């Protein structure tokens, strides 16, 4: 089981890394057409960051792809394996690869590992948690972008609110700390919805099994959208 999941995760990563072949083309395009004279290293790092973002979303969205494509849920669920073990077997190699890519980014491209790391992990988890409720990769992607923007404003609103109300520390920890809080506000309810659905999931048509998922995810997203909308002007625009 683990071998298959590692193989699947590596396959997804290699598919994403194929995007890197566009780097020389982008370099030539810049030199011949755009003439902005970007360094090769800068173009490479921009494309590599994009690749990691795509991998994070893609790996999450495709977490049950082999079961869906191969119609293998019945086989998987007939095996004497707990749902927790299935989930760990699926998540672990994908997360390991993502963390490896984040470390590569931090080491070779001098990026803020905390800020980028939290964002990439958030994208992965949102996408994975969406994958059980949403079949279409496109809709999953739209959902991920929407939730990313909610997160993007949410942690800033919370941070600015705290600063306005007396939070004095302006240390390096403050951004990642509020990013973590923002990510938790999104991921905890989504993760609960995902787990409750997956734990009870069987081979009935999926549309009959999503009630719990939507009952938790929809209100959470709506509440967060309303919260961000109501506080956006005061804590983002006017801050």
């Amino acid at each position: 089981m683990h071998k298959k999941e590692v193989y699947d995760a590596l396959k997804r990563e290699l598919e994403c890394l194929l995007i890197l072949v566009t780097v020389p083309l982008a370099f030539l395009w810049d030199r011949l057409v755009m003439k902005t004279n970007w360094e090769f290293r800068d173009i490479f790092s921009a494309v590599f960051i994009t690749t990691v973002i795509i991998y994070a979303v893609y790996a999450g969205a495709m977490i049950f792809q082999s079961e869906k494509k191969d119609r293998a849920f019945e086989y998987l669920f007939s095996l004497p394996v707990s749902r927790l073990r299935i989930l760990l077997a699926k998540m672990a190699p994908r997360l390991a690869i993502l963390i490896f890519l984040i470390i590569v980014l931090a080491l070779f491209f001098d990026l803020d590992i905390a800020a980028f790391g939290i964002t990439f992990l958030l994208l992965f988890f949102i996408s994975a948690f969406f994958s059980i409720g949403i079949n279409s990769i496109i809709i999953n992607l739209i959902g991920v972008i929407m939730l990313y923007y909610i997160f993007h404003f949410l942690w800033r609103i919370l941070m600015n609110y705290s600063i306005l109300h007396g939070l004095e520390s302006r240390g390096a920890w403050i951004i990642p700390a509020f990013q973590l809080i923002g990510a938790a506000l999104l991921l905890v309810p989504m993760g609960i919805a995902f787990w409750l659905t997956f734990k009870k999931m069987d081979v009935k048509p999926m549309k009959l099994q999503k009630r719990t998922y939507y009952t938790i995810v929809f209100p959470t997203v709506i509440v967060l959208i309303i919260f961000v909308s109501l506080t956006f002007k005061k804590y983002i625009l006017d801050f």
Partner: protein
Amino acid sequence: MLEIKNLDFSYGKTRVFKNFNLEIAEGQVSLVTGINGVGKSTLLRLIAGVLRPARGEIVFKDKFGNDPRRKIGFLSDVLSLYESLTVAQAIDYHKSVYKISSVDDTLIKHTKIGYAQKIKELSTGQRTILHLSLILSTEPELLLIDEIIHSIDAYLRKVFLEQLVRLLTDRHITVVMVNLNFHDIEYLVERVILLKAGEIAVDEDIEALKAKVKKIVADSPPEPLHILSQIDYSSHSEFFVYPFDEKSRETLEGEVVDLNLTEIVTAFIGGEYA
């Protein structure tokens, strides 16, 4: 071996079972039958653990351990496997999950399956044999077979049934199978369970059932016997009756004919469509 207690199950608003109860004895070969959509495959999937009941429980004997699926072999009608894997990878996967060192490939060798072939490239018969080999390598106590025997060719069917007979003789495993066509499995079946509207309409030992279901060829209905279904011809009619009472044989007008399992089930099912 297993007991199903007060089980409810629905697909959305379509109720399949309500307060369903059934007991399967150890070492018994049971045949579950009934019209299409009555819940035969659903029943097997519930026992296999790939569907979850809304209410009620399925209780297995102690030897099934904490996770009964370890001792259940489920050969489903959709032959679900990871289709993008090769045969060798699928065998490896199964071995790693069950922590077994090898899979007996005697059956696989009967077919022309190549280990480098992808599962999706295999015929239904080859997939059935591969699936059966995987299942048997885990030495199940309970084998669930869903309507697959007749979708494979005559040779592979013979291979499959020989293996099944060997298992029944050597290991006395329990078998629950779903089928609508019985001519080459009739000799294996000990018990017949006929489902109707999510309930058990008939649950009989096969010999008792054969004694109770008869065809009566006559001009008029064989009163007071209960008629399951009838076929009318220009010169006479055939009445399928259940339960047949031996005492009534002497007073009946017409010929009483014994039936095989296929004819018996057809009579019951014909009655439902009448």
